């Protein structure tokens, strides 16, 4: 007997007390919890919660955005920036020509990305109650590694369209078949005497721009 049969056989024997006719699909599960905690101002709450976990939050109109992105990259002294294939070109319109644009390519190595300073992306959805932005590797977000290896991530959230109240609402907007990365503030650790330190392996600075269309 192979291990699969052994394990499944043990599971079935262990469940001898479960009536054969019991069909979990037919019994609705009691979900007495809330679908949303109904924040009065979801965008405001998103900003507050992101800031609480040390993301830097900015608000912007479409007209202001190119200037803001240029300033955020300049503040970090970025000499290079990764650009996902589907990023709206106007977002980087005011970034000086000297700042090298690095396309997101399948052939790229992690080592090469390690030499890039910043990355600018959009997002799939943002969750107000938890202060989370979710990336789904869409065209304006690119492969997962480009938001991981560079030390600075600028993430643009279109408000209010991309903002939901809650985790349940967020999951409904996402496609499980895509690779998903949920980001709630820059990477952190509390492993040394429970002192929270921002920034271990992921980007140590996370700028979130709330773009009001």
């Amino acid at each position, binding site marked *: 007997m192979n*291990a*699969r049969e*052994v*394990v*499944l*056989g*043990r*599971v079935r*024997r*262990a*469940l001898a*007390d*479960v009536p054969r006719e*019991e069909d*979990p699909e037919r019994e609705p*599960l*009691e*979900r*007495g*919890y*809330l679908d949303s*905690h109904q924040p009065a101002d979801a965008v405001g709450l998103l900003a507050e919660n992101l800031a609480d*976990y040390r993301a830097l939050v900015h608000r912007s109109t479409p007209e202001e955005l190119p200037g803001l992105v240029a300033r955020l990259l300049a503040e970090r002294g970025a000499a290079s920036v990764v650009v996902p294939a589907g990023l709206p070109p106007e977002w980087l319109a005011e970034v000086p020509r000297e700042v090298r644009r690095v396309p997101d390519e*399948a052939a790229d*190595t*992690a080592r090469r990305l*390690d030499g890039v300073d910043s990355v600018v992306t959009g997002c799939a959805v943002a*969750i107000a109650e*938890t*202060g*989370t932005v979710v990336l789904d*590797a869409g065209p304006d977000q690119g492969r*997962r*590694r480009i938001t*991981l290896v560079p030390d600075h991530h600028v993430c643009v959230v279109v408000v209010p369209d991309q903002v939901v109240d809650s*985790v349940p609402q967020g*999951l409904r907007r996402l496609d*499980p078949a*895509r*690779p*998903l*990365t*949920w*980001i*709630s503030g*820059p*990477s*952190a*650790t*509390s*492993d*040394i*005497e*429970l002192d929270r*330190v921002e*920034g*271990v*392996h*992921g*980007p140590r600075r996370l700028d979130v721009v709330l773009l009001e269309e």
Partner: protein
Amino acid sequence: MSGGTYLGMPAFPRAAEAATRDERLRANLTHATHTIRDKRARAVAELPDWAELRAAGAAIKDRTLRHLDSYLERLEAAVTAAGGQVHWAADAAQANEIVTRLVLQTGEREVVKVKSMATQELGLNAALERAGVRAFETDLAELIVQLGDDLPSHILVPAIHRNRREIRDIFTERMGEWGRPAPEGLTDEPADLAEAARLHLRQKFLDAKVGISGANFMVAETGTMVVVESEGNGRMCLTLPETLISVVGIEKVVPTWRDLEVFLQLLPRSSTAERMNPYTSMWTGTSDGDGPSTFHLVLVDNGRTDTLADEVGRQALRCIRCSACLNVCPVYERAGGHAYGSAYPGPIGAILTPQLRGVDTVLDASLPYASSLCGACYEVCPVAIDIPEVLVRLRERVVEGGEATVRGSRVRIRPARGHAAERAAMRAARWALDHPGALRAGQRVAGRMRRLQPRRLPGPGAAWSRTRDMPPLPPESFRSWWRRTRGESGEAGR
């Protein structure tokens, strides 16, 4: 260099006694557990529907466990359809053998690992080392543990027993043997220590061809794997290597995508006391050009089906490893994580380890007594595991013997009467009672709410204890009794 081993650990009371004598360890633990405990209470209080989320979490897990075979088959089909390869392991030896073979097939001799309790339980690193494969732990705490040739002592903060100066010394002395050495003149500031770890591990991540992970959840419906983390080392291990091997206990499956809405609310608030942890990765099989091109899922039994066979003990498999029960446990706070002698410390360890391994060792027989049955663990458990109920059940098994399932076969466990196991159990019980923190918390028993599970008390264990050699509960306050019997300095709980 693969770190310590839990094999041959002394029974709980002896290990606990040694730990309580260690002032620094105890101070570290008290500080840590109280800090997280208070933060958790605040994070939970933010959600008015916490009780309903908790009930749903328990119900989803129960439903899954009652039909585990069909959910596992569904998961296997979904993962396979998405481009992953599924392997099954009945025990630790099989799991280690499969992972070792998969690693060797890639031609690589180094792997990066993201913290996984399952691989700790299996002793995977040691098995890989025997095959000439070096496994690099990449969580900061696991790195501290690995470099220090040590064992984890807490689920969430495995190096909770180390302070910053010790960590600085470990980094300075040992990093060079494993890769990039610590920077000259490293200070003991947490930010500097984190930076040293970042630099040391970055080289490993960039070169890694094989990553090994566990998973917090697996969705049967979609084949999606979920890893919840803080530092970003998880994302590194999950996305940069060409081959990803996830080693996961069979109880981690949940039926539907929607079910994640419950657990992604319960877990971060219970565990790190955050609204959401910094990073959560979800992936389904493989994706073209993004992340590993080869994905293996190793589904591990290793005693889980034995646990499933016990109708009372089964609920231990609901555990989502949040560690909230450790942080409120007066016995854990005194004894430290190592005394529990397995990858699973604290109250959950006291009910999971004896069931996974069978109560036939002296240590495992003593674990169900490493508790004052105060019930604080049940109150904070996000999936409402009635840990005291399972403890009583396991005590009954130690004392009276009875039917149990061990490695898939029904066996009769003989009562421990007169054996070393019984003596160890008694010492553990006495130890738990001898510690004022334990008893203080015991006073909560009367007031606790038991909404989700019927109470099965006092149980045979209590009856047994009345007739045996155990100090009777003193009528006076525990503190004064303690002072009287142990002298002035005893109050600190030594």
